[in-house]
């Protein structure tokens, strides 16, 4: 299994902590999901200890915390937020999110590469939220990233893997880099598909938090990533055009 900055993840599911009906439901959803990583967004309103109540609940989930820079539109904002996150959660991990477009929440990959370089030089271990573009991926790796997190589809859209061909190409292009499908997952089948393609983990939030029953959906996602991961490891058969009988037909009496 590929390692995330020298860390092995117990399960290939990273779960976000936003938008749940209540912290109590968030807590139960996490337990059901078996997620090994909790992502949490740091807004400026939380600065100076104002977000402590919520953050201590996140710490009490007992899973590795991956703070993110959600909502940042500039390198400067993202770098400031990353520093705040490192102080609050005492971790070098940072999910770097640089929003380039308000409606699609598409990452601004130019600023992303720049911020990744600054943060890596400063000792951060960066998890960049990026597109499926291979060249951007290369630039992020040269900037010091050791993980890539391409989108499946725009954040919160629940559309699944919008460009599966490109994700497949990315897996082939970066065979040694841990890859995480981040954003766009709406259903367990989407998460399973990402794992079947050989991705190392799936990161999702809205699909669970905004489901009618977040706890049940969390369980469904846990089963899905496990199924997809097992399937990938099991070396699935190739699809083919014609039927291939699983039992031989020669010698069977067919004129009875």
């Amino acid at each position, binding site marked *: 299994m590929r390692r995330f900055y020298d860390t092995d993840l117990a399960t290939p599911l990273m779960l976000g902590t936003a938008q749940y*009906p*209540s*912290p*109590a*439901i968030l*807590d139960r959803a996490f337990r059901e999901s078996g997620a090994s990583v909790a992502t949490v967004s740091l*807004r*400026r*309103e*939380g*600065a*100076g*200890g*104002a*977000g*402590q*109540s*919520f953050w201590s*609940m996140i710490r009490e989930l007992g899973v590795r915390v991956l703070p993110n820079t959600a909502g940042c539109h500039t390198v400067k904002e993202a770098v400031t937020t990353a520093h705040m996150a490192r102080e609050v959660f005492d971790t070098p991990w940072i999910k770097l999110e640089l929003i380039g477009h308000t409606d699609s929440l598409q990452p601004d990959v130019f600023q992303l590469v720049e911020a990744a370089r600054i943060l890596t030089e400063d000792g951060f271990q960066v998890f960049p939220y990026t597109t499926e573009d291979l060249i951007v991926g290369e630039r992020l790796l040269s900037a010091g990233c050791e993980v890539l997190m391409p989108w499946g589809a725009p954040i*919160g859209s629940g559309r699944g893997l919008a460009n599966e061909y490109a994700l497949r190409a990315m897996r082939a292009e970066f065979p040694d880099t841990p890859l995480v499908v981040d954003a766009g997952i709406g259903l367990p089948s989407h998460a399973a598909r990402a794992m079947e393609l050989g991705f190392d983990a799936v990161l999702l939030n809205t699909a669970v938090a*905004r489901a*009618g029953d977040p706890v049940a959906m969390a369980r469904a996602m846990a089963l899905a990533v496990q199924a997809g991961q097992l399937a990938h490891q099991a070396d699935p058969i190739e699809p083919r055009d014609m039927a291939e009988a699983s039992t031989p037909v020669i010698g069977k009496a067919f004129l009875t």
Partner: protein
Amino acid sequence: MTPYSVIGAGVAGLTVATELARRGAHVQVYDPAGGPGAQGCSWWAGGMLAPWCEYENAEEPVLRLGQQAIGWWADHTKVTRNGTLVVAAKRDLPDLRRFARRTEGFTETTEISRLEPDLIRFDRGLFFEHEAHLDPRQALADLQTGLRDKGVQIHPQKAPKDAPNPIDCRGLAARDALPDLRGVKGEMLMIRAPDVALTRPVRLLHPRIPLYVVPRGDGIYMLGATMIESEDRGRITARSMLELLSAAYALIPAFGEAEILEIGVDLRPAFPDNLPRIQRRNGVTYANGLYRHGYLLAPALAQGVADLLLDGKQSELCDEDCP
């Protein structure tokens, strides 16, 4: 007769005092501020009595207990029973469908402009006809008057140490005794838009920036409210204000001409399940955790306190360890 001391004169304290007095108990209220005001989050509430809508993102007790609130409040203040209208922009129709799946008690309508002629940009929505709204500040004033008429005094001071049978209704200030209480930041605006004539609360669904508008009469509207896991009660951020106003402008362009009368920022007291609770610790009864459902659930909370103290009955809002 056993005297009771209610600590805190926000919506929780005043409803608890009202309910106890209504059942004939002898009550005193203590609040250093002397009464409700801008120092408490009930001052900044929307005042929507919208249990069916709130069920979209809340647990079942909110739907059931909230329905009792409309009648309770109608006995004590002016309640406008005109329903709630929920709309979404065309591109956000999945959010409207989700809202419909997650709630009940509505009819789907394509006659938005018949219900609210100012809503010309929307051609479908959900109409929750049994919902109601009130003016929170008027409601608090009416409760005060009602208490005064029953001889209940609101003492402008902290409760004395030996106050008999204390009932702590201090909201977030009670976290010194209730460690799992947290504050959830909310920001709101009061605006005057005399050209807009809404007759009922309107909710605009949006994946990132949901908005509700509550008419207060005389062309005054309350726009609310953000929900942020932060305990900074300082000031509104530029982003929150931009989002609230942009959403209001998207709802009705004439809101662009409105005057901004007030900016409210405060913290809602909430337990981890976002439901209110009655607890007993060292001889003190605590009634707290109304979260964003102050006016919606305060009557059920007050009845639960009165049931417990006067009749020894455990309401479902009582903690399991409530003696």
